[in-house]
């Protein structure tokens, strides 16, 4: 496939992620921070996010499985996840965390369990989307092309 075509695919794909609400403006901030001295910055941070989030999701599963649930602990984990997803622009994950925290506050276990499922779902979807994005970028770079900057009207 022509580099130009892959570049076009990348731009269209990225735009769709914004349109569908998977990404918000904070992701653009991350991209703008990337430069020649640190060309893998976005991929590195997103990768850290995946690892960190996976741990948090595991902790949450365990915490909610206890006979007596420590809601403070659960809330602390969700707060972390909300923070990191917000910092990288993973909007749907962030929003799922906000809903989750509301149920923690009122100590509603059923609500929390449902929210955990929702957060996990959004996390896996986001992971999938990011992986596709980075794969497209890698294809472009491997073909000698440069990553196009996305112009969004924010």
């Amino acid at each position, binding site marked *: 496939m022509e580099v130009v075509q892959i570049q076009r695919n990348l731009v269209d794909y990225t735009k769709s992620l914004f349109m569908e609400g998977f990404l918000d403006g904070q992701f653009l901030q991350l991209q703008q921070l990337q430069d020649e*001295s640190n060309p893998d*910055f976005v991929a590195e941070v997103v990768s*850290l996010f995946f690892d960190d989030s996976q741990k948090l999701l595991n902790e949450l599963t365990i915490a909610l499985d206890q006979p007596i649930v420590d809601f403070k602990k659960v809330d602390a984990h969700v707060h*972390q996840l909300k*923070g990191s997803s917000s910092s990288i622009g993973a909007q749907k994950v962030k929003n799922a965390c906000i809903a989750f925290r509301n149920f923690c506050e009122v100590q509603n276990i059923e609500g929390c369990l449902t929210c955990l499922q929702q957060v996990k779902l959004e996390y896996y979807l986001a992971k999938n989307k990011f992986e596709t994005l980075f794969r497209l970028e890698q294809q472009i770079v491997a073909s000698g092309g440069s990553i196009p900057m996305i112009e969004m009207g924010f």
Partner: protein
Amino acid sequence: MGGSAGGCGDSSSEDKAVKLGDEPHVLAVDDNLIDRKLVEKLLKNSSCKVTTAENALRALDYLGLGNETLEGTVSKVNLIITDYCMPGMTGYELLKKIKESSLLKEVPVVIMSSENIPTRISQCLEEGAKMFMLKPLKQSDVVQLK
């Protein structure tokens, strides 16, 4: 070594040129790994030297106020930027400790938080925080700090 004219327009290799005394040294404190990476990059892109700490106690040690501070390891810091919500000692408590210290009370402290709570904000400003910033941080936020 005379004063250099600063980096030229496209200079971005922060690890190469040794700019002595030119760059502000910022201590960034946050328990969230992703946020630490982000704030570090934001500051480095603004030509700051950055040290990160993952909690308030480590920060105090680094600043020379902790129980674990070793002789001769205290570095001069021009700005401290800290998250509010941290386990153990909060950013607010860290701010208080800094302002209580004759050694460090002149160092400006900026508090970051993901939560926009007016009482929290005024509490921090009253305690002497230079600024309160909402997370997630953007480049325009960091530019303000300089």
